[in-house]
């Protein structure tokens, strides 16, 4: 095998390793990055669209990622990229939708980057608190976040008033938030 072939083989190997490392980091941290993106955008679909772009841009720029394997550093780096993708996405849909200004989104993005660890703890707390709810109430609370489902639909199926179920969902959210606050306070002490 000549030098050219050897070099090419080494290059391919290095690229494969870099690719494996990227996919592994991205897969592990996708939820945190998506949560950051979702915090800045009004709908889940917007977040899904931006995440596809974020994934591609992160890969294109992965060679410039100088951090170690620490998940925190990767998330922080990816969130900087995500911030710009969110702003780009916003420019596309701002013509026709009511959205926050670039200035406010930038402020929120800065704050969100600073509170990434807190956001992760909040997510864990929400999951824990949700599991404490009776299944029926959990199902009702999640209905507003489930595509194809809605409080109106649940109300129709139950033969209950929509307004009453809305009130119940609001109350359940409050219960959940109080539980999350307690969990967070416990973690901090």
């Amino acid at each position, binding site marked *: 095998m000549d030098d050219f072939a050897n070099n090419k083989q080494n290059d391919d190997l290095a690229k494969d390793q870099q*690719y494996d490392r990227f*996919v592994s980091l*991205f*897969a592990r941290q*996708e939820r945190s990055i*998506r*949560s950051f993106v*979702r*915090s*800045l955008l*009004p*709908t*889940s679909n917007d977040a*899904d669209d931006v*995440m*596809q772009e974020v*994934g*591609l841009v992160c*890969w294109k720029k992965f060679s410039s990622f100088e951090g170690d394997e620490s998940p925190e550093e990767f998330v922080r780096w990816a969130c900087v990229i995500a911030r710009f993708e969110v702003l780009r*996405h916003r*420019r*596309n*849909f*701002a*013509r*026709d939708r*009511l*959205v*926050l*200004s*670039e*200035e*406010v989104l930038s*402020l*929120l993005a800065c*704050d*969100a980057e600073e*509170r990434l660890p807190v*956001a992760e703890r909040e*997510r864990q707390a*929400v*999951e824990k608190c*949700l599991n404490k709810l009776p*299944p*029926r109430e959990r*199902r*009702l*609370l*999640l*209905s507003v*976040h*489930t*595509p*194809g*489902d809605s409080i109106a*639909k*649940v109300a129709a*199926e*139950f033969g209950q008033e929509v307004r009453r179920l809305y009130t119940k969902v609001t109350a359940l*959210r409050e219960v959940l938030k109080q539980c999350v606050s307690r969990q967070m306070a416990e973690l901090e002490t």
Partner: protein
Amino acid sequence: MSDPHTNQNLETLIQQYAYGAINAEQLDELEAVLKSDPDARRRFLSEMNLHSTLDDLALSLDSDDSTISSIDIANHSSLVQSRRTKRTNLLALLAVCLLVVASLVPFMKPQQEQRVALISGMSGSLQWTGDGGRVSRNVEVGDELSGGTIEGMTPESWFELTFEDGSTVSISGHSMLTYADNGQKVLHLKSGSFSANVAKQSPQKPMLIHTRSALFEVLGTRLNVDADLSSSTLTVTEGRVRATRRSDGESVEVPAQHRVIASIERELRPEKLPESVSQWGSQLYHGPTTTYGKWIAGSEDLPARLWAIPYTADKETGRDITLYTASVGVSTGETPPVVLPPQSKIRIRGRLDHPNHVFFGLTVRHRNGDFAGRFQTILPAESFTGKNEFEVILNLDDYSLDPSLEFLKEKLPKGPAELIVESVWCHTLFDQAGLAITSVELNP
């Protein structure tokens, strides 16, 4: 944000935003609070994080969870499964995309087309067709383009192109412009209007602007061109332009602050720019001149109408939405420019088959022809309940800058007063609400 009432209000605003149900007034309120209060931002992010987490958990909801037994489980679980699959396949899709992109890169590089201009400003829906017929609606500020055709797809579209020598051209509204620069700039305005600020050109190679009825040769100037099927109006703000009428080859020099109308019905003669007026009324009964929409002639019982027509932005732009738009050109062609004093009122009459949010807007330009922005106001569906016919009277103060132009807000005027009104438009979003305009009046 310690006041409980304010806290409650903030929470309501955040919920409205998170559910995509916020209105313009609430958004302004939320924006003001978030801009000034770090604690409000913390609460906002915490709430949105809760939403995000519940979105995730909703996806992992066990479809066998039959605690609500009467729910249509099959339908419900297929939707959940569909979205879950979408999300869980994201990485797989990403991996495939990366591999495909990597393997195709050598073949995907376009032929070395000469980049002749840069997009220096844009908003609204646009379509660019490049050499070889490539069509893209995914153009952005900063993109370098080879020669091609740029088309404003709706009355709200606007686009500015900067050539290497600093010359700029911009189109506004439903217009179509083809451009090339192979040592000499050549533009073809198929329809609509455009303005240009042209740097000094070589006398041997002036910028050529073609329309169906005229050819304009430009050495360095500011100008506007309005073109339709039978005539073209050239307005020169600075410098001189040679105008040639195609039908008979006659040509004239048009100096600054003059205009010429190239049409077979009148003499080709430069005339001083007419004084602006502050009062104007649409004349839809005459026909669909400089309008956008479906025109229906009037009858004994009904006035002529201009129905809003749909335009759907495709998924390439990330905006799979439909706008139903109608627009009436105001300061176009031969008519004197209409400039509104600050106390002006805009009266729009029309009809709406179903109550819906309606966006009412004005597109304006500076006296030198430069784009000065789009200003709009949104009236809620409640304003249109009761009967199908409507009459809306708006003050200029009611209008604010279209959010999609926010990146230009430092450069654009604060409002539409004292500017030339290019067009008046209205649209509904998503729903065919049966919107039509029957008349527009601008009164000082």
